[in-house]
């Protein structure tokens, strides 16, 4: 009996160590993007306020360039508004029937160098932010989408996340593929599943296809490299992102009012469509 307790005492710590490691590894291997975002949403309750104040100091340094971008953007929007009003007056489209709602937020925590990158914005459920809203930079480039919300903050999936997927197509030729990040460089993503005969060239613009998350025709990036895959059936495109993910500050949130309906309709015949 005495011997047995001695042996138990000796192996207790290694045994505990093995249990801890098994629990941690199983937790890690079963974790989805949603689990990770949930954890970040919890810790934002503590660190959110501090990160926000750091962010507001940093924001002063980019005010000038941001003003330029915003002014330029206002000009473009004014132009769009003008044409829209003109069309509406002629009765060609129903005025006021806008399927997208826009709001804005600030990025208070960001990462680009991990394999699964997320950023946190300073708007949450209280500000009517909800999961699956698209996140765009002020110039209208794709940056990510909202994954999980707490009361005052939301965690967003960055384009530079290995779980990120969205539809992309050529602006000029309408060939569609899916955008994915390989974990390498946060400035580049891949456009997969493009048929090998699709006429892409270096410098072509890649834009978003409509989905329950993203509005159509938003710029994702430009084609940087173009090569056919090993089986020669598909092409492999490297796309340089238009958004600089390491310098996100102000972002636009886009809510698709028909998003739920769109998602439901698609899930009836595409059970595998996006987790």
């Amino acid at each position, binding site marked *: 009996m005495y011997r047995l307790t001695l042996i138990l005492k000796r192996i*207790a*710590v*290694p045994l*505990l*160590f093995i249990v*801890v*490691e098994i*629990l*941690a*590894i*199983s*937790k*890690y*291997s079963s*974790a989805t993007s949603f*689990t*990770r*975002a949930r*954890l*970040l949403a*919890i*810790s934002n309750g*503590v*660190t959110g306020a*501090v*990160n926000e104040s*750091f962010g507001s100091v940093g924001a002063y340094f980019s005010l000038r360039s941001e003003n330029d971008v915003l002014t330029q953007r206002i000009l473009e929007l004014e132009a769009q508004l003008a044409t829209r009003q003109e069309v509406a007056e002629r009765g060609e489209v129903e005025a006021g029937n806008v399927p997208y709602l826009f709001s804005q937020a600030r990025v208070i*925590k960001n*990462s*680009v*160098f*991990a*394999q699964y990158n*997320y950023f946190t914005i300073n708007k949450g459920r209280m500000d009517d932010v909800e999961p699956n809203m698209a996140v765009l930079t002020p110039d209208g480039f794709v940056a990510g989408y909202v994954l999980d919300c707490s009361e005052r903050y939301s*965690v967003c999936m960055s384009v530079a996340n290995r779980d990120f997927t969205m539809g992309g197509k050529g602006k000029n030729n309408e060939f569609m593929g899916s955008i994915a990040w*390989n*974990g*390498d460089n*946060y400035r580049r993503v891949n456009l997969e599943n493009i048929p090998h005969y699709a006429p892409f060239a270096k410098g072509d613009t890649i834009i978003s296809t409509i989905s329950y998350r993203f509005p159509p025709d938003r710029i994702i990036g430009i084609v940087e490299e173009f090569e056919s895959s090993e089986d020669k059936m598909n092409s492999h495109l490297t796309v340089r992102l238009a958004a600089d993910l*390491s310098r996100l500050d102000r972002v636009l949130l886009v809510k698709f009012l028909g998003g739920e309906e769109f998602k439901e309709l698609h899930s009836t015949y595409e059970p595998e469509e996006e987790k």
Partner: protein
Amino acid sequence: MYRVVEYVIFFVAVVLLQALLFDNLLFSSLIMPLYYVVFVVLLPVKMSHFWLLVLGTLLGVTMDVSMGTAGLNTIATAAVAFIRPMTMNLLMGKDVAHENIPYGGAIDPRSFILFAAMLVFVHHALFYGFESLGSHFLYTVGKIVLSSLATTILVVLTARLFRRIVE
């Protein structure tokens, strides 16, 4: 003897430093120091193996919640806490027996640096190894080596400061 209050403050301080400072510093994708492991390195010499493991796991879980990594920090930090007594015996031998923390006093500074570097390296290798799961092999190795180097420098600086406070 264990200086509970000092270690509680130290724990909170390293967690906040990691979450608010080092996780937000974007020097380069190859230098991402996981500074918080300094807490395990500087725990009291005479602390039992059991408590080392418990505190290491607690630190790992805290960092997992803060970084949103779901287990990754726990895998690395619990392993470092587990191998610490063996590493200490191997690299410092009898020198540490009369010290409270594994830095200063009768301990050869070079053996402390080696000890810290070894623990930091194991920690970073597990963390970035599990994070990349074998993809981008050379890049990951570079990240492990350079980040370990940065963390080791920070650990040595912290050890000097910490000894002044604790002793």
